[in-house]
């Protein structure tokens, strides 16, 4: 009996574990099943270079088609797993096919959170997660004049920056008092807000959309909770994602905010792992169970489980990091800010280059950097090594963090 590995999900995490199994010398059959019709591709450029026409579809692919056959990875695109039979270690596919597994990896990803208001189903209301959605958004952007983005998180703000760089009138509506509130501190939120505002985008915080009005089936205007109308011929909704957990839940695996896994990214079934956006794991960095949505998380968890399956298990302990590019601003985050009680700023926000170091007690827990790549890299290393750094040292821009 061969030791088949079946990977459910053809996104960044799914691709990565397939590739890493081969890098690690795993020689048994590997199946990679993705429900999108494309070869595995990169999502980060969709909101940036792709929608503005600077990076075409073929340049999004993680690897060419020949790579999969060349590495004995059986890629099933446009195919979907509809059930897991744990007792017989089989998955059932939509096409009717069944696959046996020795190890099953759930890299199921997530879906867009839908906005539930009147008019949200009108033509001209878009979401962005998949390549298919990005192709539609790109086409609509070419025609649009007034673009309204609902949601001031990373995806929403990246789309807003792209739309503004194409010369569109852009408005961003955020429900919370500040932008990216879940991910960064107040000084970064404010810096990004003013960066968008200076370039002519209207940012409306602390607001919600009551309804979207159409002309026929086409969206024309939206109305805020305070009654203010805003013209819009393209509305992009970026209000977060919901992890895909149904398949795990139906198979009787514990699900919280994501599929619950241990430090080896294993579910309660020792033959089933979950990685990437859909997995909730115990983080050594926050001391809590977290579910992260990032390329780094998808890649490093894929590598980690590949090593475990290949017989070299180690607890997952990679430092989380994130990035967002908006206009010419590069925002980079390392670590997790959960529960921080103190922060210091390194560099001058007015210069457009600064970092914010967050501490939980005496421990550095996260660093957000604006156009300070060296700080970001140093932060990743400091966090990985659990190096003790005082807030005073962090704030001293003349101190070279690399020597600590």
């Amino acid at each position: 009996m061969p030791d088949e590995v079946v990977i459910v999900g053809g996104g960044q995490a799914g691709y990565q574990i397939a590739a890493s199994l081969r890098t690690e010398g795993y020689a048994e059959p590997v199946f990679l099943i993705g429900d999108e019709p494309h070869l595995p591709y990169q999502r980060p450029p969709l909101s940036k270079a792709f929608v503005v026409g600077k990076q075409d579809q073929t340049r999004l692919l993680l690897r060419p088609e020949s790579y999969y056959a060349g590495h004995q990875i059986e890629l099933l695109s446009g195919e979907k797993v509809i059930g897991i039979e744990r007792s017989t270690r089989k998955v059932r596919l939509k096409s009717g096919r069944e696959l046996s597994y020795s190890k099953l990896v759930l890299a199921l990803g997530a879906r867009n959170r839908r906005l539930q208001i009147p008019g949200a189903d009108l033509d001209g209301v878009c979401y962005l997660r998949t390549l298919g959605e990005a192709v539609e958004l790109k086409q609509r952007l070419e025609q649009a004049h007034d673009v309204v983005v609902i949601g001031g998180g990373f995806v929403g703000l990246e789309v807003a920056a792209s739309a503004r760089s194409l010369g569109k009138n852009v408005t961003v509506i955020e429900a919370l008092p500040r932008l990216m509130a879940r991910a960064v501190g107040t000084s970064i939120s404010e810096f990004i807000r003013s960066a968008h505002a200076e370039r002519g985008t209207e940012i409306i915080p602390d607001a919600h959309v009551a309804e979207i009005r159409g002309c026929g089936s086409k969206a024309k205007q939206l109305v805020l909770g305070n009654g203010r109308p805003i013209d819009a011929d393209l509305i992009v909704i970026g209000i977060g994602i919901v992890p895909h957990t149904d398949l795990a839940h139906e198979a009787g695996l514990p699900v919280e905010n994501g599929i619950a896994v241990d430090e080896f990214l294993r579910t309660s079934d020792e033959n089933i792992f979950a990685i990437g956006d859909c997995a909730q794991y115990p983080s050594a960095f926050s001391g809590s169970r977290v579910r992260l949505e990032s390329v780094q998380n998808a890649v490093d968890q894929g590598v980690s489980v590949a090593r475990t399956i290949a017989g070299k298990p180690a607890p997952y302990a990679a430092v989380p990091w994130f990035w967002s590019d908006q206009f010419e601003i590069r925002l980079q985050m390392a670590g997790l800010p959960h529960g921080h009680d103190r922060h210091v700023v390194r560099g001058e926000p007015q210069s457009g280059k600064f970092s914010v170091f967050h501490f939980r007690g005496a421990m550095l827990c996260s660093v957000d950097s604006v156009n300070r790549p060296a700080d970001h890299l140093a932060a990743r290393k400091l966090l990985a090594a659990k190096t003790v750094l005082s807030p005073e040292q962090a704030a001293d821009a003349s101190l070279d963090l690399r020597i600590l």
Partner: protein
Amino acid sequence: MPKITYISHAGEKFQIDVPNGESVMEGAVRNGIDGIVAECGGSCLCATCHVYVDEAFLPLLPAIDEEQDAMLDSTACERMPNSRLSCQIAVRPELDGLIVRMPEYQK
């Protein structure tokens, strides 16, 4: 189209035509060459497309900026004076014949 030669750590040579404007990293990834990982997709964020550039071509490359310099300090294999991130080398006609050697590992 400029020809780029990629040499693996084990000494295997791959000669690839890479269109002007694309990066040396993309040339490798689009042809499925192992040895260049490019986790971040070419955003100068991960240092997994590290290459050692043939000395003869170094003068033709743009200066290493602050961002690349920081990333090169984080490569899995040792940084050398001819280390570059291949995502930061845009192919142009003068780079025809460029030779890059790939490190033993990227992660």
